């Protein structure tokens, strides 16, 4: 069978504008799912990390259980939990977007939380003591002293996980959410050109994720340079 990539040219609008950006009759979009998942997953991840590092057992134990439970289960299973559990618990079936978003945030926060915890633990203990000695409270210490340093240390692992997260959003297509993967499936039903279509979206995902890793390398260099400059300024 000969390959015919004109199917991409004929359908690129649906694939990219609808599937990736979510502009069109179906709504949807990979980015509309990925960006909020990154933001909310990070926030919940910070909570999970602080819980796991807490000296209070009633915070530490549930946080630990949450992380261990989620990390022992595939993402598809978590998506199905919410797909079936939300209608049973609330009597209302949520749209695919919200099911996918909640499932992804809950799933990714467990992994992000472990990365953030490692980042927080990488900040020298003396920093906390110095912050407390200046009279800062817990939240101020976290916000102004620990987290800024922790984020710099964990940035490479964090971006790696964000890249994984972007790839993971393709699973929303399983419950019918119109993302890039679902858009390719939809076009394929009509055109029957699986190799060309799936190869094309593979390339689109690749550009997206490889762009993220290039961006993160540039950011790391800038942050490293910024830190060195601040140290030099403080020392002069």
């Amino acid at each position, binding site marked *: 069978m000969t390959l015919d990539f004109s199917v991409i040219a004929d359908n690129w609008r649906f694939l990219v504008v609808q599937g990736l950006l979510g502009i069109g009759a179906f709504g949807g979009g990979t980015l509309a799912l990925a960006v909020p998942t990154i933001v909310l997953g990070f926030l919940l991840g910070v909570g999970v990390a602080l819980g796991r590092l807490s000296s209070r057992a009633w915070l530490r134990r549930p946080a630990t259980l949450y992380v261990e439970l989620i990390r*022992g289960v*595939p993402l598809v*299973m978590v998506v199905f939990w919410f797909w079936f559990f939300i209608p049973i618990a609330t009597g209302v079936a949520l749209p695919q977007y919200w099911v996918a978003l909640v499932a992804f945030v809950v799933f990714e926060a467990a*992994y992000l939380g472990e990365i953030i915890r490692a980042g927080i633990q990488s900040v020298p203990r003396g920093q906390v003591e110095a912050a407390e000695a200046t009279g800062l409270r817990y939240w101020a210490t976290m916000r102004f002293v620990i987290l800024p340093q922790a984020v710099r240390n964990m940035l490479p692992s964090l971006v790696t996980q964000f890249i*994984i997260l972007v790839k993971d959003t393709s699973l929303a297509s399983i419950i019918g959410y119109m993302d890039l*993967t679902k858009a390719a499936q939809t076009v394929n039903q009509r055109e029957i050109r*699986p190799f060309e279509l799936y190869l094309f979206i*593979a390339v689109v995902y690749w550009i997206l*994720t490889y762009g993220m890793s290039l961006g993160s390398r540039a950011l790391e260099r800038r942050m490293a340079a910024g830190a060195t400059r601040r140290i030099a300024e403080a020392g002069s």
Partner: protein
Amino acid sequence: MPRPFLALAYQFQWSVLWTNPYLGWLLWGLLTTLALTVAAWILATALGAFFGAARTAPSRLLRGAGTVYVEFFRNVPLLVWMFLWYFGVPELLPAAVQDWLNRHHGEFIAAVAALGVYHGARMAEIVRAGIQSVPGTLMEAALSTGLTLVQAYRLVVLPIALRLIVPPITNDSLNLLKNSSLALTISVAETTFMTRQIESYTAKGFEAITAGTLIYLVLCLGVSTILSRVERRVAIPGLIVRGGGAAN
């Protein structure tokens, strides 16, 4: 009268999980998950060892091939690879091969290829990090004793590197096990697929998914317990390699 916690009148019926044929389906799903994981793991470690070594080779061609393999396969969702290997690749093959695949569980073969090649790229990165953490003088010493490059890798560098990278490999093997659940999208009858099938036959989605979840939890716990024993046994005292900590 107190309102029930669950708003809908959902009748729990856990017994579906141990009645026939559903119990048999779950067991078959478990076996398929294990078979898929083992087959894909063998492919992934073979590809990972080869391309990971290639990325550290003196030859630019080999290094380039390793980089292209790793960067392309690692950065695309596994789900897309599943579709590409199952729906796309057979289109390029002769009709006789397509026929053969249709009669011999082509979906299982495609899932092994998708999982193996995807995780091979991740394993290659771990292997590369492991090789690069082996002191360069060992390689020089091996070459100066008259070993060829392949022999130096096979007999000196890889045996040390492989022992160094057991912890990150463990981590990624667990990811491979969990990722095998994506094979449900191309109708491989593994655990998640069977869970869905029980749900659609009995409408007892909650029970079915609980069973599937428990299977994965027990599998992950079991594999990580066994592998942490292995880790302790093969650890080289005083040498620890970090990396490959991320998920999926």
